């Protein structure tokens, strides 16, 4: 990216704005525009999408004119593990139940840390956290989460 532009951050941000703006306008073409006195469902979103496209273009153009910082290192491991573990929790909660999905969420996300190692203190914290969630959220507050899901006949 650096060879392409003098400000990779601005360039990427601009591309993101463009993507969202174009998607916004493209999808909104199915909604009725209406008139300016009786705006349809598509009016405001199309205007917003158009503005976003404009900002995106400005940002891209600016990235070639005004030098700026590089994007810097991306914490790929942290990103993948934290986002992935959270998504997995959502996927597993109903079929596998709270206990299993919590273990997956906690262990996967914790392994994103450089300090992660399985010692007794972490194990105690893990058990305590799962027990806390079971007693406070499910038993106490009555959040409808199965402790063991359909996979375990729950």
């Amino acid at each position: 990216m650096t060879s392409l532009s003098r400000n990779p951050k601005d360039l990427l941000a601009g591309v993101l704005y463009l993507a969202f703006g174009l998607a916004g306008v493209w999808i909104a073409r199915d909604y009725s525009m209406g008139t300016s006195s009786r705006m349809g469902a598509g009016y405001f979103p199309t205007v917003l999408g158009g503005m976003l496209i404009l900002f995106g273009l400005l940002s891209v153009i600016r990235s070639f004119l005004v030098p700026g910082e590089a994007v810097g290192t991306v914490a790929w491991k942290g990103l993948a593990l934290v986002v992935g573990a959270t998504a997995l929790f959502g996927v597993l909660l109903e079929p596998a139940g709270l206990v299993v999905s919590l273990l997956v969420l906690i262990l996967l996300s914790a392994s994103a840390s450089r300090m992660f190692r399985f010692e007794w203190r972490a194990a105690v914290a893990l058990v305590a956290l799962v027990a806390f969630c079971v007693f406070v959220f499910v038993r106490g507050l009555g959040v409808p989460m199965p402790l063991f899901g359909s996979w375990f006949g729950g």
Partner: protein
Amino acid sequence: MELFANLAQGLGTAFSIWNLAYCLFGVILGTAIGVLPGLGPTATIAMLLPVTFGLPPESALIMLAGIYYGAQYGGSTTAILVNLPGESSSVVTALDGYQMARQGKAGRALATAAIGSFFAGTVATLLLALFAPPLADMALKFGPAEYFSLMVMGLVASIVLAQGSLLHALAMIVLGLLLGMVGTDVNSGVQRYTFDLPQLADGINFVIVAMGVFGLAEIISNLENEGTRSAMVKSVTGLMPTREDLRRIVGPVLRGTVLGSLLGILPGGGAMLSSFAAYSLEKKMSKHPEEFGKGAIEGVAGPESANNAGAQTSFIPMLTLGIPSNPVMALMIGAMIIQGIQPGPSVMTEQPALFWGIIVSMWIGNLFLLVLNLPLIGLWVKMISVPYHLLFPAILVFCAIGVFSLNNATFDVLLMAGFGLLGYVFRKVGCEPAPMLLGFILGPMMEENLRRAMLMGKGDPTVFVTRPISAVLLVVSLAMLVTVLAPSIRRKREEAFQE
């Protein structure tokens, strides 16, 4: 005196035993989460919001307000003790507060922060009680055109006063507005941007967005520079400030309170700007500016008073106009909507018990902070010492279960993961997520008012400039934009944020 009658009514609400308990619980919970390094007030409130959903509206809002001050005070505690400001508003507190802690004066710095915050909170609560009614009266006369222009001004002001690139802030606001369009259009019943998913028909809950871009994305960012975090705290002794200390902090506390109260009302101002401004003011006023950065007690007292005053007065536009001036207020508005209260000037007349109850409980919350936090300091120190690698999985767990419990939908958890990804990507390319959240909350309201105004104006956009109040608001917005774009002021603004 109407003021006293109003406050008496508020006392009635706030002093119910349950509301006192929720206020106390909120303050303690907020402080406990707020002292954890790497968790600012926005993330704290987003995380704890679901806890309040089961409560009656006034208790929920009282507790949330308590959480807010608690989180803010907790952030200052962390800033002073371990030099890890959990949020931007306590960055300046860390400058001198941490130096005081290194000199063994941690207790005195914490006490100074508590006393300054309490005084500022008291004054700002009174200001809120005084100025809210006339402002709400004025706002009741607002039509849709005025409201639309007011929201434009609020959004513009929030980016002018905020940090960072103007272009990106504008773009993020528009992106937020666009995301706010997801769901069923109230006028036509058309499903917009729902991709035929029934889970999106009611729109995206703002808690999901807030937890994703503030909670998850913050964790990922923190993991990047994990090695640099060390949270070793020495035990805190000597809580009582000396007579000399007290003499030195009177001026800074008074000035900080005034400055913070004023800046807090401005959209986008709030706590952060107030504390920065107060610090530079104290440095300029001081006879010993060279002491600043080396443990000057004035450098703790001024900003701490200012940020608490600003936090308090930023409720004024939120409660009277229904316009959030910062992400925390955006969350408050979201909480009100979930509780079935339409934020705006009518809240005060239609639900006076709620309105005045919140105001009075703000003062009570500040009192709790003062009398509780100093004795509990040992507990907070223990919480700060919890290593981050044990902490963040727990934060994730609470975010995930909290988001699930909004609608008992696993889909929302996936959506939060998506917003976490989006939030991190935007952080990496230098875009602050706060304006996006403001836009997201205001999106539907803006569209509705724009539609109504244009309908009244028969499709003629001049309706926004022919109505005097609306015109003034738009001119002010334009003037703000122009001044920021003007090169000389632009440089000054950058310098101001450099400090």
